[in-house]
């Protein structure tokens, strides 16, 4: 019991000062948002609404989870939204004609193929991730347009819709999916060789290579995972809204990156983690929920969202540096 209670402070004490800063600010921000919204709206702090926020955050998390791994390696995957759309549409076309299992398999396979292609472009052809995945973004969009010809696929099997719209007791199914995914990715990042590799590559790719790490293989695996998880997110999305159209996923890329940044994972790689992305996804969902409940003017919402992302990243840069400098000055552990 005492061991368990001591685990958290010990974990925090092991963190370098600037990471500690990130964890503390995010926790504070989350608590502050919840407090403020509870004060401003009597409808906010209800079980129903919290479940509602959790469900929306889960969807965000599932999409941002794979991206987190990529960003931890110091890369980026701009194709997540487009790959989500392509996989969702391919899957939907089979699912709607009754082949649920085949549809799910096709969607995941499409995501895997796009992810593998991204990984190969980055490692074998040495194309910068930003460019390679940006190219993949357009290829995936293009294929989706060709495949769908401007049509919408709608009306899926009840069983399939469970993953997006179902409940287990009072808990929405996507929340459970997100929780399982969080657990798996946490273990992957902190208890496997691949996980250590991801942090090492993000921290210093040259050193990682020199130490004999199979850097290319790790990178390909990470991009492939990102593709598969985007496809999975796509399935959850279409199960939730009961339709797939060629624009599915188009608007999701920026929010996916925002959730990772808000979670305190550094865009330069090597720092952060999957737990942060949960927090980031929650902050995003809470802010949108709050703006809806408070009926904030339509015109302010996009700007408000952007501002929050900028402030959080800026706070890390300035705040983290200050804290680090202060610790160094005292001669403490960096």
């Amino acid at each position, binding site marked *: 019991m005492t061991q368990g209670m001591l685990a958290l402070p010990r974990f925090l004490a092991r963190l370098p000062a600037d990471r500690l800063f990130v964890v503390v600010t995010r926790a504070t921000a989350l608590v502050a948002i919840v407090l403020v919204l509870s004060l401003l*709206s009597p*409808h*906010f702090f*209800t079980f*129903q*609404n919290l479940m*509602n926020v959790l*469900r*929306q955050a889960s969807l965000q998390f599932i999409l941002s989870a794979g991206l987190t791994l990529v960003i931890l390696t110091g890369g980026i995957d701009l194709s997540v939204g487009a790959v989500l759309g392509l996989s969702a549409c391919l899957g939907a076309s089979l699912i709607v004609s009754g082949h649920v299992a085949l549809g799910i398999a096709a969607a995941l396979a499409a995501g895997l193929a796009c992810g593998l292609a991204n990984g190969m472009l980055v490692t074998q052809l040495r194309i910068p991730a930003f460019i390679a995945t940006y190219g993949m973004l*357009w290829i995936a*969009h*293009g294929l989706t*347009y060709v495949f769908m*010809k*401007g*049509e*919408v696929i*709608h*009306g899926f099997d009840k069983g399939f819709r469970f993953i997006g*719209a179902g409940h287990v007791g009072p808990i929405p199914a996507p929340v459970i999916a997100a929780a399982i995914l969080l657990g798996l990715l946490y273990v992957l990042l902190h208890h496997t060789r691949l996980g250590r590799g991801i942090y090492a590559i993000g921290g210093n790719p040259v050193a990682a290579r020199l130490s004999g790490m199979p850097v290319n293989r790790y990178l390909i695996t990470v991009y492939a995972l990102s593709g598969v998880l985007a496809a999975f997110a796509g399935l959850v*999305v279409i199960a*939730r*809204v*009961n*339709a797939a*159209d*060629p*624009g*599915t996923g*188009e*608007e*999701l890329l920026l929010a996916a990156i925002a959730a990772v940044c808000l979670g305190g994972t550094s865009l330069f790689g090597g720092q952060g983690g999957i737990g942060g992305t949960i927090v980031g996804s929650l902050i995003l969902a809470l802010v*949108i*929920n709050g*703006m*809806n*409940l408070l*009926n904030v003017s*339509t*015109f302010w*919402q*996009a700007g408000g969202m952007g501002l929050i992302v900028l402030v959080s990243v800026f706070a890390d840069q300035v705040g983290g540096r200050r804290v680090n400098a202060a610790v160094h000055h005292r001669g403490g552990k960096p």
Partner: protein
Amino acid sequence: MNQLKSRRRVLAAGAAALGSVLLAPAALGQTAGQKPLRLVVFTKNLTNPFWNAVRVGADKAGKDLGVTIEHAAPTKPDNIEEQTRQVEDWIVRKPDGFVFVPVDYKALVPTIQKVNKAGIPIVVFNNRMTDVEQVTYVGSDDETIGYEITRHLIQAMGGKGKIIHIDGVPAAITAQNRKKGFERALKEFPQVELLASQPGNYRRLPAVQVFENLMQRFPQIDGVFCANDDMAVGVAEALEAAGRGGKTKVVGIDAIPDGAAAILSGKMLASADFSGHDQAYLAVTAMVRHLRGERVPKEIALPVVIVDRQNAKTWTMPVAEKPVPQWAKVVAAQKN
């Protein structure tokens, strides 16, 4: 030598015969010896089924009138810069006519003035443009459609109750005009209370999430106006998922096939259509008639059709099977 000549003659005759067979369908309805007219039809994006219906309608008119239809649409949906580039490219390719919808009615004005300068005739449809020369404008307008469907909703609510507005992309002129129409209708019914107006960006997923949030705050919602059907279907799904289906009347705009299906199953009350399919068919027809020297009305207004349980069946069928509008009938119905 002689043999060669005759063989050549046979070949030429064969080629001519083959050519006339190949060209015959295209030559129907136009004077012989001319190559078929080539029109370029612009749409706003490749994602919304509304614009797919537009392309299908245009293709049908092209086939019926024996003209070649080419399509141009930005790959980034509703992207001003990309559409500007596409127009500039097409000016260079000199089609016989532009059948055009601006992704932004103001931003595209200078670009369309270049089309005017190049002497290529242009028919504008769906979104009105000012300060450009045009053969005609074909369309309804977003304010009217917003007004008509809101009135239909409120009348179904018995003229009173609590209502929510789910907006499109706030910056889009279509969304602004639909909202204007919504507000105009709302003013006529003082017993209707507007609970909230929130953006769903014309997309299903954001609309679902926004509406889920709003349901937390408002235990009683009598009516929902959505700026398009994609969002309306999403809202209907969200109500259903929350076990509140049937208590709230939902309306949208565009009458897309799954919107029509939702209306038939009772999840949605109604939608409104200013048929993209018909608009495009008539716009292409107007252009062809103009190019063949016939008179075309300055403006071709299409009536707004309310799609409800009675007539929704027609809208569930694929656009390819939709009946095409009759030019003479539509022109006779015009005021000018």
